[in-house]
Structure formats: structure tokens, C-alpha cells
């Protein structure tokens, strides 16, 4: 292990790299497109709400389509009496727990199984068969196994997340460039080095894809669990409201659910940006 010998620097004449210029962009160039897009989004939303409000009542039966005003009033009531918070909190807990359980077990198992090609080849058809089962169909079974408490919803949320994270991560592991592994082997890298310095970073895109696509399913799993059997949570709020023909209540809950979904997506997008920094500059635009 000689750490000392470094070749003498005779430095090659600096070959032409790209020309660097500090770019001075105006506010308009920098933010113009973004402002335009957000302006249109907000405008579209306002138009939608106004049209909805205008049609609801004179043309359409509010009993069926609700109305922005009705939804706002209902949300206001629920905020006032605490219904909104307590139920949202329950559902968010189930989503987050289910997502964590599914994602952690999916990723861990993917690295274990996919790293050994033979094991993967043996298990592949079984995994695919399990993956193909509609996860809703598992709800009755989960009720039998775990009762109608939080566990059942968490697991229902976790199941789909598990498969999506597992399959995407495994695909990432399988796509690792053999030549990169060889390069590390020649550097006298251990199996541990290969796992942590090649396979892990190389499969990160697959893992993140899995996390990203599975987020809506955590929400779906939890809400379905609550719809099937529950006395609290947003899913319960939907089934309870609809049982009372309270369309405003159903729509109000849907609004809350989409806000939660958007928030979760924003979090994962942030994650993706960090790990994909090594992608070429133009890939993110």
C-alpha cells in the first residue's frame, strides 16, 4: 500500500472544455414560464369553481354534485367541531405507517433477493402471482387476521407499497452495470464495497421510482380499509356522509384526501431531486 508515489505532474496543456459564462437572466427569463403556468392553473381552478357554483342549484341538483360553497361550509363546521382534525390525523397515521412498513420491507427484501440471481429466478413467478392479486380483495382476510383496528388499514396500505417498491428496486438492482462492479473488483473492493458503492447508488433510481409510484397506493389502501370497516378516519367520514346522503360531506373529504396526496407527492419529488443530481443537466428541465 504505497500512498506516496504520485506521478510527476507534467500537466497536459489544458484541452478545450466548454466555455463558461455567467449567465445573467432577467426576472422574466428566470420566472416567466413558472409564473405563466401557475397563473393558468389558478385561473383554471377559479373558473371551475365559479362554473360549479353557478350550475349547482339552477341546473344540477346539489344533492348529487354538491357545490364549492357547500363544501367550504362543511369543512368549516368540521374544523370547528374537531371532526376534520381527528379523522385526518388517523388516516395520515395509517398512510405514513403503511408506507413506511411497505417501503422498508420492500426495499430490504429486494436487495436480499434480487442480489442473488438464482433466488430471484426461482421466486419470480410466485411474486408476480401475488402482485397480480387485487389488494382490495385482501381486506376481508386482513379483517379476519387483524380485526378492524388500525393494523388492518396499515397493512392494506403497506401491501401495494411493498410490491411496487420491491419490484422497482429489484429491477434497479438487476440493471446495475456489470462493468462498474468489475471496476470495483479490480480496485480490490470487497463485497460490501460493491453493495454500498455500486449496487446501492445504481439502484437508487429504481427505489425512488418505486417510492414515488407507490405513494397514492398507500392512501388508497388506507382509505379502502376504512371504507370496508371502520368507525374513524377519512374513509369512514366518506361512508358515513354518503349513508346520510350528505354529498357536501363526501366532497369535503375528497378535497382533504387530494390535499394529503399532493403533500405526499411533493415530499417524494424533493427526495428524487436529491438522488438524481448526477443525471445530465438537461434531464430535469
Amino acid at each position, binding site marked *: *500500500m*504505497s*500512498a506516496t*508515489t*504520485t*506521478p*510527476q*505532474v*507534467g*500537466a*497536459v*496543456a*489544458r*484541452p478545450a*472544455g466548454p466555455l463558461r459564462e455567467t449567465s445573467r437572466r432577467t426576472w422574466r427569463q428566470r420566472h416567466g414560464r413558472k409564473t405563466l403556468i401557475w397563473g393558468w392553473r389558478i385561473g383554471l381552478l377559479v373558473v371551475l369553481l365559479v362554473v360549479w357554483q353557478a350550475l349547482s342549484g339552477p341546473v344540477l341538483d346539489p344533492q348529487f354534485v354538491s357545490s364549492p360553497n357547500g363544501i367550504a361550509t362543511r369543512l368549516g363546521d368540521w374544523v370547528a367541531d374537531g371532526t376534520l382534525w381527528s379523522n385526518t390525523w388517523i388516516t395520515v397515521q395509517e398512510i405514513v405507517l403503511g408506507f413506511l412498513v411497505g417501503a422498508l420491507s420492500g426495499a430490504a427484501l429486494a436487495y436480499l433477493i434480487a442480489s442473488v440471481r438464482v433466488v430471484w429466478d426461482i421466486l419470480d413467478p410466485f411474486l408476480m402471482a401475488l402482485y397480480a392479486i387485487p389488494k382490495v380483495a385482501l381486506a376481508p382476510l386482513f379483517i379476519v387476521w387483524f380485526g378492524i383496528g388500525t393494523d388492518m388499514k396499515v397493512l392494506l396500505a403497506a401491501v401495494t407499497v411493498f410490491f411496487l417498491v420491491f419490484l422497482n428496486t429489484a429491477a434497479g438492482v438487476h440493471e446495475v*452495470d456489470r*462493468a*462498474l462492479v*468489475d*471496476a*470495483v*473488483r*479490480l*480496485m*480490490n*473492493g470487497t463485497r460490501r*464495497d460493491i453493495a454500498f*458503492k*455500486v449496487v446501492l*447508488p*445504481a439502484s*437508487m433510481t429504481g427505489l425512488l421510482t418505486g417510492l414515488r409510484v407507490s405513494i397514492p397506493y398507500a392512501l388508497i389502501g388506507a382509505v379502502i380499509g376504512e371504507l370496508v370497516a371502520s368507525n374513524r378516519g377519512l374513509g369512514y367520514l366518506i361512508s358515513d356522509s354518503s349513508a346520510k346522503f350528505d354529498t357536501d360531506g363526501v366532497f369535503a373529504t375528497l378535497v382533504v384526501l387530494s390535499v394529503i396526496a399532493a403533500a405526499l407527492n411533493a415530499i417524494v419529488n424533493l427526495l428524487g431531486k436529491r438522488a438524481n*443530481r*448526477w*443525471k*445530465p*443537466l438537461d434531464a430535469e428541465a
Partner: protein
Amino acid sequence: MSAAVIEVQGLSKHFRKDDEELIALRGVDLTVEQGSFLVLLGRSGCGKSTLLNLLAGLTPPTSGQITYGGKPMRGPNTQVGYLTQHDTLMPWRDVARNVQMPRELRGESKKERAAVAAELIKLVGLDGFERHYPRELSGGMRRRASLARMLCADPETLLLDEPFGALDAQLRTELQGELLRLWSGSGRTVVFVTHDIEEALILADRVVVLGPVGTILLDQPVDLPRPRDPDDIRVDPHFVELHRRLSAALKEGAR
């Protein structure tokens, strides 16, 4: 003459594809002397890369054997630095961290390896691009980064697979000069693969011309005096004579 560092005997490599055996190398015998600069010259598809993969110990031979430093090779040969034909830089590491990687794996301290890497990056003319990721570099720049990474491991034997093929002529000449400077008097052994006769003659102590399935068509010592100036040597009568001989051997192999 000094001792052999690499000895290859009856080396064959087959690739199996469905029910077909694809023979890449058959019965290759080759000895590489310690401290020598050997150039393997051959047209594409004649098994040069396959041979280097075997010398690096990345794939096992189908038959025959390779000894390195007198010992039969088993598994990856960590004494060699191998610059493969295609880049193997880690896409998620910037240039500096790629170049440092061999020393990072040895557990060398951050400060130490950063200093060595910085010097090597300057050596290959990539200073200013330390923070760039491989995909943000041109093909030639990636080549130079790979070269720096290989040198960072401070290997005793260098295996180079058409290392300067993608570079412009001027840069190629500069890096050839740099490689010769690194090699001369260092005691390092170099096995250099190319399909360019001129490049072979500017660099080599000895040129081995390979034909189909790695058949050795010609084993030619090159006794041109060093340093060899690429511009002057082209008109040297002995250079012209050697060029003609290698060229004839390559044509022979094509028939």
C-alpha cells in the same frame, strides 16, 4: 532481459450463445516482460478486449492458463490498472470522487487521497472539472478521468484498451507523451491495445500483431530510439520499414 510478469499459455476463451460456441481466443501463448511496453495490435473483433479481460482476471479462461508474477491467477488481479474500452466511471460520483475511488476503497484518509487525486486531475488536464459528473463531460474528458482514476491506484501493471481512440489527434499525442513519461524508469509494465499502427510504433518496445481468434501473426521488437518525436519519426526509414511490416502482417490476417 528481465523476468516475465505475465505468462499466457494455450489460452482459449469461448462464449456460449444458445447452442453455439463463439470462439473469441484460441491457443494464445504470450509472455510479457517486467517493465516492458507491449502493444497488442489487431483489427477490431480479433479478441483484444477479451484477452485484456482475461489478463485482468475478470473472466476465467475456457482453457489454458495465465500466471502473474509467477503465480497462477485466480479472480480479479488487483495489481493491474485496467482502462477498459468503455468507460466505467461511476455516474453518481463527480470527477474528483471517481478519481479518488481506488484509494477510498483502501481506506486512505480523505485529505491524502484528495491531494493525490487533485494532482492526477491536473495531470490529465481536467482541472476545473472536479465537481462535474461523467455525463456532463465529453467522451475524451471521461477517458482522461478514467486514466486518472487508474493511475490513482498506483498499479504496477497497466492494461490499456484503445485508451486514446476517441481523442483528437493533438490530445492523443499529448497523452501518449504523458503515458511514456509515467512509464519510463518507473519499472511499470504496460500492455496497450490499439488498432493504429503509428500509435503502436510510437509507444512500443514490442508489438504483437493479433489475427482472428487471437492468433499471433507477428511478434516484432521495436528498437527505435527514445524519445520518439511523433512528427520526426514518421519519416525515419526504420520507422517506415517497421510500419510496412506491421501493415503487411495485419493484411495477412485479414485473408
